[in-house]
Each structure stands twice: as C-alpha cells, then as structure tokens.
C-alpha cells in the first residue's frame, strides 16, 4: 500500500506555465498533435497544429466532441468496391500507425472516450475505431471554469479524472501539475521542463477541484439516482414520454453532439459497378432508425423514441453493461436540442413524474 503510494507520487510532475508551449513544441516534433484553437469567428475547434502558439486552453467545448470527431468520424469510408468480371474487388482504406496526441481535452470528453472504448472494443472489436484508438494519446486538463450548461460533477466525470488518463494537467498558480496515468503518457514527459511534484501540489489540486465542484457550477444538481430508479422500474407514465416527444423536432442533434452516442448507419454510395461503403452517424430519434423491413415501426411516435433514448442512457441494464450511465455531463444536449429536451430536463421530469 505504502509502496504504491510512493509510486503514485513519483508519477506526478510539475511544469512551469511559461514552459508549456516549449514542451508542446517538443511533442509536435515527434507526434501529430491535435489541440483546441480559436477560430476567427469566435468559435472554438480542434485541429492538427504545427506550432504551440496556435492553441488555446481557455476554450468552450466545441459542439462536436473532439474525441468523437477523431475516433468515430461523422462520415467515414469503410471500403471501396469495384466489379471485376464476375466478382468484386474490395479495397480497404489505408491504416496509419501515426501516433496522435490529443492535447487539452476536458475530463467529460475523456470519460466519453472510455465509454466509447467499451462499445467499440469489448466483445466485437471495431477495427476502424481500434486502429485510431491504439494510436491515440490523450492529455486532458482539469476544468476549473465550467460553462453555463456543464454538470459533469453530477455524472462523476469531472472536473478532474482519477483514472483512465494518459496525462492530466491541472493549473496550479504558476505551474501545471502533470499527473501521469500510463506509459504512453510518461513517454511525453520524458524531457526537461519538468520537476517532481510535491505532496502540497497534490493537496492544492484537490482543494481546487473541491472548490470548483462546490462553487463553480451554474446548473442545478442533476439527481441521476432517482431517475435511474424510475426508468429501471419502468414506472413512468406514457403520457410523460409523449409530452417530451411532443417537443422533439426530430433533428437528431442530441445523438450527434452526445459524446457517448455511437449509433451509425452504413450506406453504399455509387453506381452499379463501383462505389464506396460509407458509415455515418445515425440517430435513435429518427423515425426510420427502428423501422423494420416489413414496414412496421415499433417506435413510430416521437415519445416512444425519447423513452428508448433515455432507457438506453439511464436504465440499470445498460448501466451494468457499460459500467456507467450514458451521460458525462458535458451539457451539449442542452446547447443543441431544438426542442429543449436535454439530460438534466429529462432527469428532472422522470424524477418528478411530470414536465
């Protein structure tokens, strides 16, 4: 026990704030680095960078999660096919073994990645996802300034992670505390600029996280437990789901912006003799998503689809299957749902039995 504790302590480093860009430029020499940046329009995005000056760590989460964007792109060519005589020639996209460092993501998105890992790599392994995931190293930051819609603290996915990271940075006064969570992460700090962190640095980090949790979140608490109970017990009136469904404009934004949503559709695009097989994001809020070949649709009414979506996110069955509920508290559904149906709103409605 004591040993492991000493081990952990050795896994923590400290870097001066002014050196962070120098360090990042060292990483850029060896890896492809994708990091947050500010667009001229005022929005934020993630892009491959060639110089540390391009990045900003003071950003609002982009509408699409950077993790999802990289590991499970919106549209992906799975294969090209071509008729050759009587048979078909199939060409798979080229795999690369280029290591990618995803720098500066937040804990919510990291949590979502761990969730997606379970879906794409446990049991049936999705090689498209896995080949990218195997090459991905993450550097996440402890978030001390949550946005208006953030509630990661309720989903226990932030503002800081206790495990599952490669490297985790926390801004402490003039330094960043750097927690090392994996050999790949350790590899990144294998240069100058770092010194060993002390116990007091860790204490300061804990204090900061507690302060953030207690004082910085503007959203009212989202009480998942009672909602999970009610959903698992199937004790919610159909009327409530229909009322929620009545607000649904069927845009699918909820699924696309949710960093844990992983449903996709596979389409062949092309002519008779050649074409490509494309996989693209799909949404359980679309009517055709569950329509059967016979034409029968078990979830034709929007209310039924809202119910299905939240069962998938919150029922005990999926909780045990995936190890956590399907929400990391990033609040993107609050931003994006045209009808104002979002996780905190549904949890509240399901808990109280009314909208």
């Amino acid at each position, binding site marked *: 026990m004591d040993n492991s504790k000493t081990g952990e302590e050795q896994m923590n480093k400290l870097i001066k704030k002014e050196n962070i860009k120098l360090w990042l430029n060292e990483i850029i020499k060896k890896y492809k680095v994708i990091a947050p940046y500010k667009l001229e329009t*005022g929005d934020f995005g993630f892009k491959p960078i060639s110089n540390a000056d391009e990045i900003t760590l003071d950003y609002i989460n982009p509408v699409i999660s950077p993790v999802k964007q990289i590991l499970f792109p919106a549209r992906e*060519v799975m294969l090209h096919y071509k008729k050759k005589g009587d048979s078909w020639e199939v060409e798979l996209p080229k795999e690369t073994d280029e290591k990618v460092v995803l720098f500066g993501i937040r804990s919510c998105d990291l949590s979502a990645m761990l969730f997606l890992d379970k879906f794409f790599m446990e049991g049936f392994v999705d090689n498209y996802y896995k080949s990218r995931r195997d090459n991905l190293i993450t550097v996440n930051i402890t978030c001390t300034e949550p946005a208006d819609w953030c509630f990661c603290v309720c989903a226990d996915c932030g503002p800081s992670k206790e495990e599952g990271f490669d490297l985790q940075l926390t801004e402490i006064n003039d330094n960043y505390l750097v927690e090392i969570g994996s050999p790949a992460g350790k590899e990144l700090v294998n240069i100058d600029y770092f010194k060993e962190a002390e116990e007091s640095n860790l204490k300061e980090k804990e204090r900061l996280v507690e302060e953030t949790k207690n004082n910085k979140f503007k959203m009212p608490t989202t009480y998942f437990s009672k909602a999970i109970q009610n959903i698992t017990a199937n004790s919610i009136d159909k009327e409530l789901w229909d009322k929620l469904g009545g607000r649904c404009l069927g*845009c699918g934004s909820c699924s696309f912006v949710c960093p844990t949503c992983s449903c996709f559709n596979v389409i062949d695009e092309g002519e008779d003799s050649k074409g490509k097989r494309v996989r693209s994001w799909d949404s359980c809020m679309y*009517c055709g998503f569950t*329509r059967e070949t016979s034409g029968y649709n078990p979830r034709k009414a929007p209310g039924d689809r809202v119910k299905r979506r939240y069962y998938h996110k919150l029922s005990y069955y999926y909780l045990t299957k995936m190890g956590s509920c399907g929400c990391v508290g990033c609040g993107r559904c609050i931003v994006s749902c045209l009808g104002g149906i979002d996780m905190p709103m549904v949890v509240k409605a399901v808990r109280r039995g009314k909208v």
Partner: protein
Amino acid sequence: MKEVLTVCPFCGCGCGIYLTGENGIIARVTPSLSNPVSKGSLCIKGWHISEVFTSPNRIQKPLIKVNGSFKEISWEEAFELISLKFNSIKDKENSFGIIGSSKFSNEDSYTLHKFARQIIKTNNIDSSFTLHYAPLIERLNDFDFYVTINDIENSDLIIIIGSNITVEAPQIARRVLKAYDKGAKVVVINSLKIPFSSIASIYIQPVPEELSVLIETLGKIINKKSYDKSNSNIFKLEEIASLYVKAQNPVCICGEDVFKGVKGGASFSSIFEIFKHRLFPLFTINNIIGAISFGVSPYVNEKKGLNIIEMLNASLEGSIKCLYIIGEDILLSAGDYNRTREALEKLEFLVVQDLFLTETALLADVVLPACSSLEKKGSFINMEGSIQPVLPVLKPLGDSKPDWQIFTELSEKLGNKLFYKDFDEITKEIEKINFLKNKKFLQAEVSHLGDVISDEFPLWAKVDNSRLFFHTGTLLKNSSTLMREIEQGTVIINSEYAKENDIRNNEKVKIISKRGEIIRNAVISDEVLKNIILVRGGLGDFSSNVILPFGLKWTTVRLEKSR
C-alpha cells in the same frame, strides 16, 4: 481538414455551419455556437448536407438533348448553341423569359438581373417568390424586417398563423419553445393541427375559407371597431386581442397556409395591417429574399415584366418562346403539374441550369451544370434580413461553374462585355443596390386564384411538404439517411367523414381535383376537420402537384374509392 464557416443552403433560417472538406467529400458538419441563428444546433436537413452536394447524381458537364436523350458536350459547344438560339429569337422583350433561383447567392441574383435587362433586354425575370409569397408583392415597399430571430425568444406573446412552424423553420420553432418555457403565451390559428397546438393557450382551428374573416375580425377587436359577434370563435378572438393589447413584446409569425392558403391575399393583408412591426413572416428558402432584393423580379425596372406564372401562361398562349430556368424545378414547385408541363413542352427552346437533372431539366434542350453554394463565394439573406457570407468548402464538382460566371461568359458569347472579371467586382457593385431596402418596387398585385368548395369538389385538400424536403426535394432526395426517413405517401381523412363514406384505414383512395387526380393510402385520424383532407409525405409528394393550382398548397377535391 480546415473548418470553413458558411451558411446552410436549405431553409431561410440561415444557420451558421462549419463544413470540413476532405478529398472531395464533406467529412463533417458542425453548427456554429457563436452564430446568432444556429447557436450550436441544426435541423435534420442541415446535419445531412454532407450527403447531398457530393452526390454522384450531380450534373458535371453541359448536356444537350439529341433524339430525346442527353449527350455531354463542352462549355464552348453549349455556349455556341445557346447564343445561336437566343439570337434567333425575335422580340426578346416579349418572347423571352428568365426564371432565377431563390437558392443561389445575392451576387448570382444581381448578375442574372443585369443579364436579363442589359443583355437579353427583357423584364420577364422572376424567382419562385411570386409562387410562394404572392400576397406580399403589393406590400414590398412597405415591408421591412422589424423582428429578429432572437427577439422571438424574448417575446411574451407569440401568435402563429397558418404555419406548421416546426417544419417550415425549425430554428424559429426552437425560439418559440424557449419563449414558452420562460412563460410566454402561445396562440395558434391554423386549419390543421400542428405540433404546437398542444402548447397553445388558445388554439383556433378555422375552416380554410374562414381564416381571412377571422383575422379581419381580430383586427377590428384590437382596433376597437365594431365587429360581428356571431362568429363561433368570437370569445377566443376577444381573448387573443386582450392578450395582444397587454403584451410587451408580442410577435406574429405567419407561414405557408397564409401565403399559399385559401384567400391568402385577404388574410395577409389583415395580418400586415394588425401586426405591422411585430410581424415575422417565414421565408423558408435560403435566399428568396436575396433574389428579389437583387433584381430577380419582374417589378424592379421602369417597366413591369411577366412573373413566373404569367410566363407559363404566356408560353401556353404562344407568346413566350424561350425560357432560361436556373435552379428552379418549376415542374414540381409551380403547382398544376400538367399545365406547367404543357407550358414547358410548348417552348421552342428551354435551357435549364441546375445541380441535378431535375424533372424540369429533363424537358430542356440544353442543361448547364452549376456548382452548389458549397463550391463558391457569395452571400445569402435570411428570413430576418441578415446578410451572411457564404464561402467555398469544395472545388466546383466536375466542369460545373458558379452561376454568375456562367451568366458572364454567356453574355460575352452573346457579344457583350459589360460583365465581371471577378467576383469582388460584383460584391462592390451590389453594395449600392438593394431593391428591397431601397423600396424600389413597382406597384403590382399578384393573386393566385384559389378553388372553391362545390358539390363536385366538396372537400378542402392541403398538400403537405414532408419535413425532410426542402422546397421540391430535389436536393434532399440525394441523402440516403433522409430517404430512409421518408414515409409512404398518405392522405389523412377525418373519421366521421370516413365512416359516412365507408373509407377504411390503409385503403387506397383517389383524390380528384379539377386539374387531375392522385391515389393515396387513407389514414383515418381526427387531427383533420371533417371537410379537410391532408395529402402528406411520400416520394409521391412530387406528383401531388397534379391536383394543385399555380402557387397554392390548397385546393378542393372529392374522394373516390380506388380499385
């Protein structure tokens, strides 16, 4: 992997979107968080832009019809042929017509306006504005944008007249819900039940011919004039009037069932008088405002030209001999499919410029491939009147060209050189010209004569767009995901009517208007009134134009059993 901020090319909301082009495809669509319209969200159409514009069905080369089928030719050959034909047409002022797109950019619109008036020398130029917003034409010089999209969110009373708002303008529906959540009252006046009827504190469901009288009465109550109290909805109207008078920030939203409804002219006229600066009409095509603002209209020169419907009629009469149609699948958008088809077939020469081989393009002698708004620079004006820049994400597909460039090159071929070398020249010039802003429209009155109830046609029929279709569906039928969402075409019939006439669920019925007939599966539901049927959804949407008059979404019909 550069993200380019541009404007969604579908409805008139004008969402700011980031598109990421990669190897000739759109790899990603992301709504802008900071754009005042999208604010981090898109509708189902916007999310699927990536599947539409890089479709293998796009036209990539000019086409010429030889013995009934199309053959690819070069731009040079196409221009040669077109200029020869155009030059051979006599009295172009009266025998030539141009129908411009309500989807292409302001710069395209302005170049086409100059092409029509200076090169062809005709005023017969129009967009689909006259089809969709006829009642507004006589008010254009009084019209202005007073209410912004985000004002709606802070409104305390929202009166929605004749609009299935969730379908017509999802971003506006979003604002209505936000206002409702903050305590605003919602009032719905619509002959058809809409999703927002359920959140309305007052819902009036008039029979279609009653709408204009109803609104006129509402105006009288509000303006404290004497009014007829025999109307069955009079208490509700009085309540609306009292809410309106008390409200701090009321907004009236009106849509398709006013503009393209029964007696739309009278209804809109009353709405315009009552609500004036609190009015928010839904302009549901991305740049339909840009088209009229920059001269794609028969009412902006010294002399009036023919509007889109007059051009079709003139073709039937034989006076219009040549049409140049850009980005408008008029066969599907004008209504009265058979008459439109006849008008197009009667032409001596038809040139169609579009992204896809549309139903209209199939009738053309020459088809020119235009590039989409994802492949060129420009600007759009959205439904609140904001001009937003449009930037290219992809290279023009195949040999396709920006519309303004096609007009420019064609005019040079026709022996004139007053056009533009580059895009910036046009931008500079249009800054000074905006016919809508400068109130430069000729006084005109356009009315689409609707049908009336008779013994022969005792039912009102509305042809409803699928929420998945933008305009005619030309674009969105190229998205596999959206095609999956299309439901089989149906007709919704009131249960009492169905019982009296022995019509059962899922039974095939013939819907007959004085223009033609279509067949649909019946769905019995009390969401419609007894004397209304609703023709809904389906790919067959296209053919449902057969029963409609020009420029309207409503007609009168009778039902028969189909064998």
